[in-house]
């Protein structure tokens, strides 16, 4: 295994993927450097979450390779796939906590499933992970009793319970209030540096994401539209990236959903009285 920071930890080579007739990814090439926070941005339905699912092996690319530390995830089966997944953590959009287990048991879940650690050690590890996300005091609450932001931090503690090398965040900021949002963003950055992780953050939130990311990738039409440091992407002259970064209503991505002309729909003839 080559641990030099120059070899990408995750690499997508010429990946094509679609649902039915609709192509989501079309010959995508992407590399995620080791030890960095990479932000994956783009319009809704642009295939960002699909990229995470491909890396996690939950979907298989129709063409191309998805390399995780040199292994093609798309060809892994059964135990080999599970072995690769034990090295990843994933944070789902709304946390996906197990609703029948308490906060403590949620974080303990991967430990109990994958290790035979004595109960005292499980307790210590769980409280350490909960402490890292600031929720050591919330250990006895049920998922229905915690707020959206807290639920996501619990899910983060659960995702890092087995000390993964890669953590993937699916929309970690969606629907959070400004305080929770700032907390979540700082947490992602801090954990990445403290634990030597590689992080992939899928997000729409430009300010917060640009603030914490080392590398930003903008996806559009199934390809990479822009890639670079936050400053480089912000300065991009590509009209699509410009529209996205500056949150303009109309541009290459149209405001209006394709349909009949305004004239046709409202029964007004072009240029005068009917």
């Amino acid at each position, binding site marked *: 295994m080559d641990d030099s920071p120059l070899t990408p930890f995750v690499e997508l080579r010429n990946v094509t993927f679609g649902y039915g007739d609709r192509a989501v990814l079309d010959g995508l090439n992407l590399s995620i450097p080791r030890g960095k926070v990479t932000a994956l941005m783009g319009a809704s339905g642009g295939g960002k979450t699909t990229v995470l699912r491909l890396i996690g092996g*939950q979907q298989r690319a129709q063409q191309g390779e998805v390399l995780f530390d040199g292994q093609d995830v798309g060809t892994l089966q059964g135990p080999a796939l599970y072995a690769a997944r034990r090295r990843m953590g994933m944070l789902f959009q709304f946390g996906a906590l197990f609703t029948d287990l308490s906060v403590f048991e949620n974080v303990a879940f991967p430990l109990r499933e994958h290790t035979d650690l004595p109960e005292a050690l499980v307790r210590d590890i769980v409280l350490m992970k909960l402490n890292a996300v600031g929720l050591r005091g919330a250990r006895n609450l049920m998922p229905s009793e915690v707020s959206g932001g807290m639920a996501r931090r619990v899910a983060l503690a659960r995702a890092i319970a087995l000390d993964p090398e890669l953590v993937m965040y699916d929309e970690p900021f969606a629907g959070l209030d400004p305080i929770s949002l700032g907390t979540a963003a700082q947490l992602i950055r801090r954990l990445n540096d403290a634990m030597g992780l590689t992080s992939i953050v899928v997000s729409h939130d430009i300010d917060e994401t640009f603030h914490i990311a080392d590398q930003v990738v903008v996806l559009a039409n199934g390809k990479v539209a822009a890639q670079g440091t936050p400053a480089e992407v912000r300065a991009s002259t590509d009209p699509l990236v410009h529209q996205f970064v500056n949150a303009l209503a109309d541009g290459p991505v149209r405001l209006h959903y394709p349909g009949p002309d305004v004239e046709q729909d409202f029964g007004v003839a072009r240029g005068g009285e009917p």
Partner: protein
Amino acid sequence: MSWYKPADVGFAARRLLGDIGAAARLFMRLLALAGPAFRRFGLVRDQVHFLGNYSLAIIAVSGLFVGFVLALQGYYILQRYGSAEALGMMVALSLLRELGPVVTALLFAGRAGTSLTAEIGLMRAGEQLSAMEMMAVDPVRRILAPRFWAGIIVLPLLTAIFNAVGIMGGWGVGVLMIGIDPGSFWSQMQGGVDVWQDVGNGVVKSVVFGFTVTFVALLQGYNARPTPEGVSRATTRTVVMASLAVLALDLVLTAMMFSI
């Protein structure tokens, strides 16, 4: 979808065969996971408690009512032939051979099957099953298998309780209300019920129904579309499909038992 277009018919047939194949594969996996499920018996035990304990009240009350009605109707028929003291035997045979397993399975589908379907459907909708897969934990092994084997343990036990309570109900109406001689009530029952022929067949039925109802409930939940509408439809389908499967299998099993 129109029945006269060969392409549509072919598509529907292929999808149906695909669904049956996927269901059969899941069933075989659940059977194969018996070992791992029972090695972590705590998970099965929790589900036995959940499925059994919460179905107990409805099973006991229904058993009592069915026993009452059986005794009333049975007395009406038997006293025409002057053999009202055979009421105990009639109540016991009806319950053990037929009504016990079938009615318990139908009630179990409505009470426990729906909650299994909804629970697993909501776990899918809330991405909990995906999260589990990403933690390298197989949801079929961790979630489905313990519930499957718990259902198979629970249904025969519930059937036994249903039968016992039903016989007590029959005794209440027959002996206490109508005034049949208690000695002949019990001795006719004792003489007329065979352990292998009657009790054994009832147990076989309830085990088969346990497989059927639990599997249908788990399959519907696992394949539910991850939306509120999808989960509610899956819950409805569980009741409809499990009930029909129980009644159809009951016919098959009864026919087989008479031919042996």
